[in-house]
């Protein structure tokens, strides 16, 4: 097995796949890249116990040569470290099919790595009987960006550690929650023509975010009972789905919060950041004291006699109210809403507040919900 490849192209592809490889794994074989050469296409695979990423690139092989096929496992750490220190140039890989020794030659020298046989490397799961839909890549990237931060890290409730995908005839919905906050994003211009749902773990979503193109190019999404498969032209990812029942999220979204407060989003973020400096570190509690068209944000940390207060103007059509939120969670949410202003829908101080963008993006329905903190006022 022998091929020539540009060192920078190879490094780019290895980094794309290598994000999933962890150095401390129960199966040592997972610390390797899998190289598979067929004619002049090199497929590189990286995986952990739940996710597998594959990417294909063209390499130069001897036309009609006998060495154009084969596979080998290469230790990821050494190869990445070497390529990072090599200026861009063509390099030649020569792999001995008997003892899996890998010899790399560059302009400046020769290097050797002991490769491994590929028998123990995990096989790609079977996508048989999968449901498939296509959607623009940028839509999926956005959906991941807007939801992933709200997933839970509570391993005792595994369903909530991932993002819930729900397909209907007429739309596709993404949900994330950690029981304190909930994000729901629906695209009405995507018509999956299948109905079904599944929960995708956080780690593969993070990987997708990194390599899925930020444009309208179509990607294919397929799923079985146990796995998700994502495909672009050169790269594919499959991962195990979270086996569990997603909490009944619809039931906790209030049908109507009658009071609406509209406020400049960036100003609110900045004010919250300042005021929360003076808040109790364990709760990050900031109280919204809404009177007419004025909202006073206040925080105290009684242990140290810290106190912060700021007044802001807003538009408000409801009863005067005091409601408290965790400023850290709130800022995170506000950062993931677009537009100059944000609308906050309220009912009573012990019920969820709903945050929405005031300028609606066409065919997109975004709702963020945050449970308040109990205040003794």
């Amino acid at each position, binding site marked *: 097995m022998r091929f020539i490849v540009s060192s920078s192209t190879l490094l780019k592809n290895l980094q794309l796949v290598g994000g999933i490889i962890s150095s401390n794994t129960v199966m040592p074989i997972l610390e390797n890249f899998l190289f598979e050469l067929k004619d002049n296409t090199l497929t590189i695979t990286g995986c952990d116990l739940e996710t597998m990423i594959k990417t294909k690139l063209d390499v130069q092989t001897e036309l009609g040569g006998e060495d154009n096929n084969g596979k080998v496992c290469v230790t990821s750490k050494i190869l990445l470290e070497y390529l990072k220190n090599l200026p861009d140039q063509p390099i030649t890989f020569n792999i001995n099919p008997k003892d899996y020794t890998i010899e790399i030659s560059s302009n400046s020298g020769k290097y050797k790595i002991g490769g491994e046989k590929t028998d123990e490397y995990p096989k790609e799961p079977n996508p048989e009987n999968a449901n498939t839909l296509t959607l623009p890549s940028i839509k999926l990237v956005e959906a991941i960006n807007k939801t992933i931060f709200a997933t839970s890290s509570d*391993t*005792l409730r595994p369903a909530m550690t991932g993002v819930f995908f729900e397909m209907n005839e007429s739309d596709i919905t993404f949900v994330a929650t950690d*029981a*304190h906050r909930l994000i729901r994003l629906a695209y009405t211009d995507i018509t999956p023509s299948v109905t079904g749902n599944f929960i995708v773990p956080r780690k593969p979503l993070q990987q997708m975010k990194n390599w899925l193109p930020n444009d309208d190019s179509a990607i294919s999404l397929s799923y079985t009972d146990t796995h998700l498969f994502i495909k672009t032209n050169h790269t594919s990812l499959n991962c195990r789905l979270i086996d569990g029942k997603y*909490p*009944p999220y619809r039931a906790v979204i209030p049908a109507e919060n009658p009071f609406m407060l509209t406020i400049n989003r960036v100003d609110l973020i900045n004010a919250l950041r300042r005021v929360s400096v003076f808040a109790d570190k364990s709760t990050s509690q900031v109280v919204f004291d809404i009177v007419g068209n004025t909202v006073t944000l206040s925080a105290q940390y009684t242990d140290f006699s810290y106190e912060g207060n700021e007044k802001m103007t807003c538009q408000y059509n409801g009863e005067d109210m005091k409601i408290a939120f965790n400023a850290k969670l709130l800022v995170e949410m506000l950062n993931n809403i677009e537009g100059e202003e944000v609308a906050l829908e309220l009912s009573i101080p*012990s019920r969820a507040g709903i945050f929405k963008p005031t300028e609606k993006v066409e065919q997109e329905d975004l709702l963020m919900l945050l*449970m308040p903190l*109990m205040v003794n006022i």
Partner: protein
Amino acid sequence: MTTEGTQRKIIHIDMDAFYASVEQRDFPEYRGKPLVVGGSPEGRGGVVATASYEARKFGIRSAMSSKTAQRLCPEAIFVFPRFDAYKAVSNHIREIFRRYTDIIEPLSLDEAYLDVTMDKKGIGSAIEIATQIKDAIRTELQLTASAGVSINKFVAKIASDMNKPDGLTFIGPSRVEAFMEALAVEKFFGVGKVTAAKMKSMGLHTGADLKQLTEAEMIRHFGKPGKFYYLIVRGIDNRAVQPHRETKSVSVEDTYQDDLITKETMLPELETLSGRLSKRLERHGLKGRTVTVKFKFHDFSLMTRSLSLSEWINDHESILDAVKIILEKATLHDKRVRLLGVGLSNFDQQHTDEKQLKLF
């Protein structure tokens, strides 16, 4: 706490061969005989909790396996501990302490520090107070204790160990430095076998040797404890006697008669332990976020594995769920397990979680 210029008066009280002495008091047939309180030497699970002074003559020590103890002294009597009885005695002892001071820091059932700088009775002399406490323990409980009296916790504790049993040792302020200089390094609090060996390889055998090193050198060689040793050899230990020590973790454990080999056999035991832990936590009103499982293998090597959750828990079910995850992930290399423990830490001090309202 001490203000500058005032010398503290600290007493360390340590009951003599506590469990064994209580047994010998309650069962006259054990008196004058080598008695071991702890696990049975039959099978192979037990360890020695306490040995009577008669048994100690044969070299039997706490934490030794009961089997070894039996080999050292075949005629030794082995009895299981009666914790309820010891607990009752311990409560009585603390009641005696409280006649003199409220600043009591219990270290275990049979050991405590007392700060008697300002004693309730206005006696003034710490030696007199220690004598009275020892007398009260003798007449009211028919047991003996050893006391160490000094100006700080460290010296008081070492002093109580110097004339056991039934001893009373006083190291006055003027003698503290000389006492520390003469002390062998392995007697220093926190100096285990490894540090002691390291010190000796550097030619440091006593407090006086340690005193030759600067503070910076001590820290460089021994890390953070180096600073503590630096101060302590100069007789400085400002640690207060803490009546309400914050609970940092709660745990329960069990040693098994027969080694557990498979995870399947460990699960029911862990379930029992989780239940016991949950009961204890509920009694103390504590909720924690970090669950730890402890494995002791047949070769006595230890392994602990923890899982931190995003919520504070103390109910049986949640603890067990976490324990199951830990057990599943733990790599035991087919080693036989003789002891299992389950613990919870990372406590919710301010019950902050109660404030954040939840959706589900």
